């Protein structure tokens, strides 16, 4: 397990570092293609969407508590609460949902 995990981390770190360092060291020109620029602009949102749904539903003890936590997160962030507030309150909501679920079932 140990040498395998070192391999995984080495691959992760190397790829990520090369992505960051190569352009800074090698290139001096700017990207002009509107398609490529737009593609790169949208990537963070595409990644976060794909990682959050459906992954979030399996992040707690039950799909029910996760759904409650997700609903809390969407409502709070719609009203522009900060990252930390959203994270804490969606965890708290999930916790309360788990307690309720255990009481009722």
């Amino acid at each position, binding site marked *: 397990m140990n040498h395998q995990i070192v391999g995984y981390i080495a691959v992760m770190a190397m790829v990520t570092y090369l*992505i960051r360092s190569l352009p800074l*060291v090698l290139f001096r020109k700017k990207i002009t293609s509107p398609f490529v620029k737009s593609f790169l602009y949208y990537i963070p*949102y595409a*990644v976060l*969407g*794909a990682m959050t749904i459906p992954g979030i539903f399996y*992040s707690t003890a039950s799909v029910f508590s996760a759904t409650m*936590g997700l609903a809390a997160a969407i409502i709070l962030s719609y009203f522009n609460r900060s*990252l930390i507030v959203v*994270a804490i309150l969606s965890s708290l909501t999930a916790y309360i949902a788990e307690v309720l679920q255990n009481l009722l079932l």
Partner: protein
Amino acid sequence: MTKNFLRKEFFKGFKDGIPIGLGYLSVSFGFGIMAVSSGLSILWTVVISMTNLTSAGQVAGIGVISAGGSYFEMALAQLVINIRYALMSLSLSQKLDERFTLFSRLAVSFGITDEIFAVASGKSDEVSKEYMYGLISLPFVCWSTGTLLGACAGEVLPPMIKAALGIAIYGMFVAIVVPAARRSVEILFVVCVSIMISCVLKYIPLFSFISDGFSIIITTIIAAASGAFFFPVKPGKEDSP
């Protein structure tokens, strides 16, 4: 270039890094919990944060590790998820002052994240290497420390609290996406496409041979490309995602 000036530059950067550091402390806390609850030891969890310094890439990396994916899958996932840093790095290369050496370029590039890039590129003048070192140092320390605290908390907390905290890092993802999607219908479109495809790949049995890592790669490429195809970004807007 007096010593005093250089120290001032460093502290200017350090000060600008404080809000970033505070944010990182909490996000990495969530990452630490999530990583140990998917079976990683505290040590390797912290090593990942110290060597990668990126949230989405690390979460996807944990997914690949716990699913026993291949190194190729790991490399491709990191490439697709983190390719945006190449654009930031490219853009930042135009802003570095003439005192930047090859070594300082190599050092500073390690610390390019969404937030650090946003602050550095928001400066009206060129930036010095001392400023960049100052800007990166605190967020790096906070990212590593938060991960350590989260990983330790994940080991000692009762299972029910730990389970509830597993949602924390996803809550932060929601808090990044929702305000952006509210502001921009184009981003909302990309997020909806991305959610739709990732659900299709997850729940339709035909695609069950696709692992979670590859699913994120495929989904990201299709969603971002369809956004770029239908809603090309106007010039000058792409630097402030």
